[in-house]
């Protein structure tokens, strides 16, 4: 039953970059599912492999990067095996993507309306006139005032928030089953961020579109996600529903991320994670987090922990999780 609902199944995905200095395992064995209409957050710091994961799903990995292992099953098809021509049909049509910086993802030489129309004409059998009508409706839908006027505006004349709305309109244009949003609000002001998150949330619920939101900001996660996956050094280290992640995190990294995020209902002192993300060319042995982990034991520096279901639907990759009943012994 559960399996039936899965829209996207990523299995043992490995995307490596063959650089001059060696192989960078940006994504190193990632497995997860997204159900229809589900809102999932992929959380991690820079270099954790979260964006490479999303680009792998979209089939946008370029040289020297390569998917070296695993499968990406979407609607019963393995995207890894598809040819570029077939992938093009899926991109935009079934899976749409929203990027962090809308200015670089919009063509500066064409009015935004034309860009939405183009996407519609490419994927759907409709006339130009219908496409224009539909484009204006979409602009209205994402909360753009005076959509007719904005239709013929160029990207540079719009603010960051407006541009991101246009990107969302393009993403929605073909009624995709999955939208991947890579840091969609990071470049925006807080008041605009709140609006954009609201729109994404509302539209995903309205259209029953699944949403994979990639972010480093736990506030964004708290606002929007049903389920959360925490990524570190190319692997998912914890996965659970959003409440379990915030209430009872099992991985020391998740715990540390939560404690180091400043909040308004003031905490006394922010805990910081010492050290930094290891150099991907020289990954530590054993658990990749052990060099920064305050609870690390000897085993952590030699043996790689597997991801396991510690509580129902709560997965964690940590040696300490099975040592004690009730989670990691946090001292």
């Amino acid at each position: 039953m559960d399996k039936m609902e899965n829209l996207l199944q990523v299995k043992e995905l490995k995307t490596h970059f063959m650089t001059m200095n060696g192989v960078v395992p940006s994504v190193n064995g990632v497995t997860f599912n997204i159900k229809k209409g589900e809102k999932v957050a992929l959380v991690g710091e820079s270099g954790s492999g979260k964006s490479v994961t999303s680009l792998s799903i979209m089939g946008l990995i370029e040289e020297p990067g390569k998917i070296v292992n695993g499968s990406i099953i979407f609607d019963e098809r393995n995207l890894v095996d598809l040819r570029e021509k077939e992938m093009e049909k899926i991109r935009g049509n079934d899976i749409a993507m929203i990027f962090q910086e809308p200015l670089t993802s919009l063509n500066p030489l064409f009015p935004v309306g034309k860009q939405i129309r183009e996407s519609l004409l490419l994927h759907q059998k409709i006339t130009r006139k219908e496409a224009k009508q539909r484009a204006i409706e979409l602009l209205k839908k994402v909360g753009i005032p005076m959509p007719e006027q904005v239709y013929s505006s160029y990207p540079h004349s719009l603010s960051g928030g407006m541009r991101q709305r246009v990107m969302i309109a393009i993403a929605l244009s073909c009624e995709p089953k999955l939208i991947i949003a890579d840091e969609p609000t990071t470049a925006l002001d807080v008041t605009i961020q709140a609006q954009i998150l609201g729109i994404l949330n509302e539209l995903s619920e309205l259209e029953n579109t699944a949403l994979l939101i990639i972010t480093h900001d736990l506030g964004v996660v708290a606002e929007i996600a049903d389920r959360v996956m925490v990524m570190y050094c190319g692997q998912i280290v914890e996965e659970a529903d959003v409440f379990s992640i915030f209430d009872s995190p099992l991985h020391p990294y998740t715990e540390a991320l939560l404690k180091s995020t400043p909040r308004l209902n003031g905490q006394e002192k922010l805990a910081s994670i010492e050290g930094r993300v290891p150099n991907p060319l020289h990954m530590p042995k054993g658990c990749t987090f052990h060099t920064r982990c305050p609870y690390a034991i000897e085993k952590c520096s030699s043996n790689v922990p597997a991801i396991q279901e510690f509580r129902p639907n709560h997965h964690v990759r940590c040696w300490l999780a099975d040592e004690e009943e009730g989670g990691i012994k946090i001292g």
Partner: protein
Amino acid sequence: MVDNNEYVLEIKGLKKYYKVPNSTTKAYLKAVDGIDLKVRTGETLGIVGESGCGKSTLGNLIVKLIEPTQGEIISSGINLNELKPKQLRNKRREMQIIFQDPYSSLNPRMRIFDIIAEPLVTHKLARGSALKERVLQLMEVVGLDADYLTRYPHEFSGGQRQRIGIARALALNPKVIVCDEPVSALDVSIQAQILNLLIKLQKKFDLTLIFIAHGIQAVNYISDRIAVMYLGKIVEIAGKEQIMNHTKHPYTELLLSSVPISHPKYRNEKVKTVINRESPSPVNLPSGCRFHTRCPYANEKCKKEDPDLVEMKDGHFVACHYPIIKENR
């Protein structure tokens, strides 16, 4: 006399206008449009606002990286406008700045030693072994390994680069450090490291910090007082507790309600002040109160009269005709 001790910095009627190029009419971008501000000795003053509100311009004006169009900056009783270049140069030692992007603010061709030593060399304060000793001492203070002395910036992560920037700012024993978005380019776990380092250094060296950021969470964490800026003006300034718990300006209220929730359990509780309008352009400022186009409480008066920044209650200043009173909400 007393004033001199209490306030390390006094800003009066400060303005910075930029002429808009290629405009047929005489259009000006009013980045900073009349700011009065007193910075207390030893405090951390947070300045928060969205992009384009003029907060970085204000920071640059304070350390004299740019010249004001109008207005005065008085530092420990001395008007900076009246100083001769040489005097100003000495005065500059007291005020340093840390920038947002640790990737572009460090010269990629200089070694860490030279970067941190540069201000000491420029001001002829140390040389030879004394210089090296001082640099090593600064590196230790900010938590950088002595081994890094001869490395280049590209070998460091964002957090470490920001530490280098901080060490350089500390080199001249300044009284005031302007921190312009020092953590916004960093990862969350590193942000906490840098914020805690700044707090530690402030205590250790009795520094006055002016902490500029767009994220009110970080500002709230580090500051004693907070000034909220909107389109070139301060709209509200008060102690942190006052700003957070007794918000008076509708813009501050909007900023606070826009902050993402800290836990999913607040999803349904959160009162969302959704304002679907964006900030107007600082070239074409609205009449009257500049926030009236986005303000849910604005009326005719707000469209015509620009409110002054007035003190409502012990040190709580607000520029609004109809400030929020808690009971009414």
